[in-house]
């Protein structure tokens, strides 16, 4: 930790900027949700905003913007496995790629299973 005090002062200014941006983005995402966009668009927008916010936190509060290579390596690895993990729902749902008939809950389908 050899940063000079000047550096830190600069950091602090950045933190404040980030804080303000995060607030603004929070307001934006709530505001957008009031508009009741169609679900796919709403999801995309919400995710994009969340990713921006998340990146701000990660890059500046967590100093990822200037981290050592090793940490990046760990995170890249994590990201790869995270992607595999997010494939789970698709695989579960479409296990049979259409060969299953998924039985619908009684409320939705008149003929209840069994």
């Amino acid at each position, binding site marked *: 930790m050899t940063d000079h005090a000047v550096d830190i002062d600069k950091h602090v200014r950045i933190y404040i900027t980030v804080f303000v941006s995060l607030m603004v983005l929070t307001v934006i995402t709530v505001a957008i949700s009031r508009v009741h966009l169609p679900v796919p668009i709403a999801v995309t927008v919400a995710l994009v905003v969340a990713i921006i916010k998340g990146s701000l936190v990660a890059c500046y509060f967590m100093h990822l913007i200037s981290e050592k290579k090793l940490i990046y390596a760990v995170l890249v690895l994590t990201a790869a496995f995270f992607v595999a993990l997010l494939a789970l729902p698709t695989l579960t749902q479409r296990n*049979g790629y259409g*060969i*299953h*008939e*998924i*039985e619908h809950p*009684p409320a939705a389908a*008149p*003929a*209840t*299973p*069994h």
Partner: protein
Amino acid sequence: MTEWLGMPPLAAAHGGQIDSLIGWIHVFMLVLFVGWGGFFLYAIIRFRRSRNPVADYAGVRSHRSTYLEIGVAVVEAVLLIGFAIPLWAARVDDIPPESQALVVQVTGEQFAWNVRYAGPDGVFGKTDLKLVDLQSNPLGVDRDDPAGKDDVVTLNQLFLPVNKPIIVKLRSKDVIHSFGVPEFRVKQDAVPGLTIPIWFVPTITTAEMRTRLSNPEFQYEIACAQLCGLGHARMRGFVTVQTAEEFDKWLQERVAELADPFK
């Protein structure tokens, strides 16, 4: 050619391919094991300390083993692309049209197999959880539904005509079971919430199998393969493969019984 594997007698059309693939894989495994094993045994005997007191720093200099490894990879690739993937595709993609097949619904429950035929109309009637009665109506078939009137339901007895494609629609009432008939080389989990079709063509009637094996007691058995609770070991069903005429007769009798339960 696959008798040496000790698998149960084969009685379904697609099973031959599975058996010979299993056979070839085991030949491949055996070759690898004997090859590597031979080298291994020779090496530990030849290079024991009393025979070879000074070790050789470099050991094997050639890199022929790399070719061997590539060879293993190639054989695996052939098995995979040439056989395994297309054969599986035939299982799940080429299900025959329901019009040309016999469709049976098999529903697992702790610890029994409920079998349902659509009856003469070829349509399964509605079911309702509220109608379920473990003794008289385990599937909750709605007998007031015209399509359901003639649905034939049996317990642990699956009757099938020989040489006709059979589509089994598997479902489960409670936990996961697995529908396995060793002689047919079929096995499929019955997952609650899903209806999963599998298909096969039985090729040998029960009667014929009895003569072939000279075992008058022979029965095809449905063996539950997935742990489903304390009765898992006893969750056994039977398959009776008959000629088409025998089967039709059997089905008609059951339908008649439905129409007049007191007969």
